[in-house]
């Protein structure tokens, strides 16, 4: 569970990669070429980001002739959808900060 979270967090923390994923969520299936036009980075860079997204299960590819079409797999976000697990992570990290604060505080 924690591992699944970590992979998704890491994958989507990159702004360019996140923008690509958001575009696929919003506009549906796209080719690498179409994504590159909007991404402000080179086609190899877009392909690399798509590879990382695919590895995380966030996109799927479909070959058609010479073109590869990518689509978002929103279901892969399921581990993050559950509020209770997200809030647990939130409070764990707040407690970390609280402990750090207590160490710095005067008696």
């Amino acid at each position: 569970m924690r591992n699944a979270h970590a992979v998704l967090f890491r994958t989507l923390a990159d702004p360019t990669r996140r923008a690509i994923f958001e575009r696929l969520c919003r506009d549906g299936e796209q080719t690498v070429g179409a994504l590159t036009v909007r991404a402000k980075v080179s086609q190899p860079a877009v392909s690399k980001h798509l590879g990382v997204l695919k590895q995380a299960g966030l996109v799927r590819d479909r070959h058609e002739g010479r073109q590869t079409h990518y689509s978002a797999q929103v279901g892969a976000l399921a581990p993050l959808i559950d509020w209770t697990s997200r809030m647990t992570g939130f409070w764990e990290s707040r407690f970390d900060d609280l402990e750090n604060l207590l160490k710095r505080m005067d008696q």
Partner: protein
Amino acid sequence: MIERSIETRSVVVEREIPFPPEKIWRALTQPHLMEEWLMKNDFKPVVGHRFNLRGDWGGVLDCEVLTIEPNKTLAYTWNFAHDDAALNLQSVVTFTLTPTDAGTRLRMEQSGFRPDQRQAFGGANAGWQQFFAKLEQVVARTD
């Protein structure tokens, strides 16, 4: 540890902290200290006092103090109003402090989630920016 029931959900986080309850109580109830570990706020330790918690991501939580038992129990509402019903959140956060040999057992329980909030991010365009802004903060802390 996550506890679940059908109608409401709760999140429980418990930790043994090597400091006395009195010191932890200060960190939980003094606004300038709360800001350091939780969020910016205008909290007052008075039952019925309404206050806001302001997150770095721009979100504002509406809160009201429900319980104040110095050095023992603190509870307040933790509500987030959002146009998207799935993102609305109405919950109660309760901190319980129990003295131990080594210091204090601090327990936080947040309860009151509705079942439909499970799908808060099911829609592709629902609050993405806010969601990911928070996500980045979490990532920054877990690395």
